[in-house]
């Protein structure tokens, strides 16, 4: 699965140039070896490809929304921000899912994750009156389903 991913990336990088095929074996193999060394015993289990695509597919849209949101706040003369820190609990056991959630939260409008803690995330809000708990919980749930698709059904 990983090897397939690396191979796809290689093809994209080399623009499908066949002359690189010989080297491709070596490069993909060494990347996979590095991956195996670093991630020994940390497999995330079978992925649910459809759900992964659904989660990742939202990234560009969220990014646009978030960018517009910040741009408006930065450019408005009144500077409408009320920054603050909150702690958001998320109910997932797997640390990998927590980290992935942290990354996605940073792409969402209004939130930047500043720390990953055992029981949840530490978020910085550009407008602390907003309640983001439900939104983050939803992201975490989606991710868990995507990454643990095989187990939770």
């Amino acid at each position, binding site marked *: 699965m990983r090897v397939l991913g690396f191979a796809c*990336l290689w093809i*994209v*990088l080399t*623009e*499908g140039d066949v002359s690189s095929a010989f080297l491709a074996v070596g490069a993909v193999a060494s990347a996979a070896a590095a991956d195996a060394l670093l991630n020994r015993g940390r497999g995330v289990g079978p992925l649910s490809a459809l759900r992964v695509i659904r989660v990742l597919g939202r*990234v*560009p849209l969220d*990014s*646009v929304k*978030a*960018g*517009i*949101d*910040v*741009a408006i*706040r*930065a*450019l408005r003369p009144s*500077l409408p*921000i009320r*920054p603050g*820190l909150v702690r958001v609990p998320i109910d997932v056991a797997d640390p990998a899912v927590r980290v992935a959630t*942290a*990354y996605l939260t*940073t*792409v969402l*409008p*209004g939130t*930047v*994750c*500043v*720390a*990953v803690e055992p029981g949840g995330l*530490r978020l*910085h809000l*550009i407008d602390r009156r907003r309640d983001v708990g439900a939104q983050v919980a939803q992201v975490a749930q989606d991710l868990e389903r995507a990454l643990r698709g095989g187990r939770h059904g």
Partner: protein
Amino acid sequence: MADFIAAAFILGGCFFFLAGTVGLLRFPDTLSRLHALTKADNLGLGLVAAGVAVHGGDLVIALKLLVVWVAALAASATVALLIGRAMVERDEP
């Protein structure tokens, strides 16, 4: 037509870079500035990459640019996490 769309994307990207930089200057504290960095600037980069992709009109190039954008996105989120953690630790050790 493609050129026109490309130009629109690139100019839009520049606008967000500008907004991000203004945010970097105007926002009162470091953690807020992270928002400008991780959101406006990333969107700016994404739009410029999209513009270049449209301009090139090549699927593989477009995929390559997507790789660039995703890498930059992941990098800035990591950096935000690092800075954020350091700031939080400094304020409440």
